[in-house]
């Protein structure tokens, strides 16, 4: 953003002030994430930079907390990671199936009561999690599903579907329906048309909705706190307990792994978004 040569001084000052403000906000957004990286390699048990770390002494850094995360004797992270992945994968599959099919219906121009139905389908995203947590807990307790994986998976499907519905309807809004009519006129049945024509075109939207559902489930703690028993502990629950009780550097090692995971997901989501825009012929 180079300024033209003739810019007056006070605009010049204002402009650099504006860039400074923006820089500070970006710093505020991103810097907290980067504090975790170096501290997770701390050789000491403190959660602040030791003098050794400040002078970049190699002895001040170690993989101690990563070892503790993986091999630690009474560490719950292994079980928690296993549960988290199982729950998130099943919740994602459920959300994607239900959400995509519903989005197909919602995008049809024949859909009756579209507004009100959409409002209901999106509501789990809007209603505060604590209220969803209480309501879902009452349901699961009555259905005998509290403290089971099934119960948590169902709860996460509820929370994940709005994201799939939103991303897939957004993809379908740029969808050219004449291609499905063309397929039908060439004798393809609806299921075949969907699998061969519609799905490949909306796939980026479906996958990015799935990523949202996965992250929602993987990161969800409020509802799980109500539902989970000892056997169903997840990574967020372990982090929550850890942060409330003893803030150990092992948590930072886990957090670093989670940041790497979210970076991977972000890159995938961005690539998919661009591909989807290219497929739909939108050039921004």
């Amino acid at each position, binding site marked *: 953003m180079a300024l033209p040569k003739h810019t007056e001084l006070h605009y010049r000052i204002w402009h650099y002030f504006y860039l400074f403000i923006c820089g500070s906000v970006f710093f505020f957004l991103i810097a907290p994430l980067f504090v975790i990286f170096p501290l997770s390699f701390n050789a000491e048990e403190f959660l602040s930079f030791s003098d050794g770390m400040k002078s970049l002494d190699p002895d001040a850094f170690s993989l101690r907390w990563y070892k503790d995360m993986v091999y630690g004797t009474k560490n719950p992270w292994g079980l928690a990671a296993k549960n988290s992945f199982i729950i998130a994968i099943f919740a994602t599959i459920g959300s994607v199936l239900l959400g995509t099919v519903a989005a197909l219906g919602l995008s049809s121009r024949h*859909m009756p009561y579209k507004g009100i139905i959409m409002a209901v389908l999106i509501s789990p995203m809007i209603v505060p999690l604590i209220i969803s947590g209480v309501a879902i807990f009452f349901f699961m307790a009555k259905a005998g599903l509290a403290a089971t994986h099934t119960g948590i998976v*169902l709860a996460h499907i509820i929370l994940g579907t709005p994201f799939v519905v939103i991303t897939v309807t957004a993809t379908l809004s740029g969808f050219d329906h004449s291609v499905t009519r063309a397929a039908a006129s060439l004798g393809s049945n609806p299921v075949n048309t969907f699998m061969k024509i519609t799905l490949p075109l909306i796939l980026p939207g479906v996958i990015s909705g799935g990523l949202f559902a996965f992250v929602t489930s993987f990161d969800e703690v409020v509802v799980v706190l109500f539902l989970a028993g000892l056997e169903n502990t997840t990574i967020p629950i372990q982090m929550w307990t850890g942060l409330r009780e003893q803030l150990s550097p092992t*948590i930072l090692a886990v957090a670093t792994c989670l940041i790497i995971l979210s970076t991977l997901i972000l890159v995938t989501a961005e690539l998919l978004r661009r591909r989807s825009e290219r497929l739909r012929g939108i050039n921004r």
Partner: protein
Amino acid sequence: MSSETQQILTTDGIPLEVSLKKAERRNKIKAFLLVAPLLLFLIITYVFPIGDMLLRSVDDKMVTEMLPKTFKAMEKWDGKELPEEEVFAAFHEDFIKLVEEKREGKLSTQLNYTKNGFKSIIKKLRRKSKNFEEGNYKEQIMAVHKRWANVEYWNAIKRRAPAITGQKYLKGMDMYKNETGKIVSVSEDRRIHRILWLRTLEIAFFVTLFCFLMAYPIAHLLATLPMKYSNLLMICVLLPFWTSLLVRTASWMILLQQQGVVNDFFVGIGLVADDARPEMMYNKTGTYVAMTQILLPFMVLPLYSVMKTISPSLMRAGKSLGGTPIVAFWKVYFPLTIPGIGAGCLLCFILAIGYYITPALVGGASGTLISNQIAFHMKSTLDWSFASAMGLMLLTGVLAIYWVYNKLVGIDNIKLG
């Protein structure tokens, strides 16, 4: 001109209009059937349970079921003077049954909620009632303790007769129904819930404001920079957005603690003395800072998507027509961004008002919100009906904002990433 000559027929002889209507109906059903599985799933597992919360929050059957005969006998009693023998006899009968089922303790807890002092006199009644003689229960019960001869206690029992109550909602507003049935506030030093409601609104409002003030300049920068730079900077917004909430809260706990990085920095530049490090966590400051950073992407993204559609030539036109950059910005650019501001602020406010995890971890006692109180009653006091009542009060507020959001922005326009 008869209508028949006007009608167009399809090849199989059915009027076109009828045939089209039929096809339309079939399409409607088809579309609806696609939505049906998810809708049904959500109604069963989500919408009904929220209705269940409503029932729980007003449910007050417990005492009603424990003293059925007493309440029947009390129907005719006006509550001005002590009830007749008939009521005492009925109460005795109900009470004996409760003692047999070992439920009199529950009754005393419940009645104690309505009026203090029931616990001890019910215990005493249980002991003495073993030696009661047949008949004249009024005299015998009144002899157990002088409170049993006090009309106020009998009125307190009568107040528990209805099977539904709005008492939990009143409690959520720090109010209660007094002896005469008037709704009054609790004494000033015990108004904890009102403070929490106000604090929740205050924190949600200021977090939204801070988010707006910080998001506006960077959204503008992102929307006006060339693609290759803005894509890079966009990562700064999207990475926190995709990162676990607990990770972000953990990083703020590390930054803000007394021996933390921010305090170290302040000491380092000589802003504060080493022995006077300010407390920045476990209070409102912690909640404000952490929530603002966590909710900022939700403000940036809607603002950005609106600003992206504003052509830069509009600002140039404004300036070429003689406006200073400030006037051009205020009269041309800013009004065009109002839809984005509305969307971002409403979204932020809705999310902030129901926040639970971050305030619970960094908020301490003075930085917690109404959600934390709901969780407390769900998990610690186990007063689920009170938790439900407060949850529904919060929900009403959120749904009102959601409705406004839907009117202004439209839920189908929510953008993600």
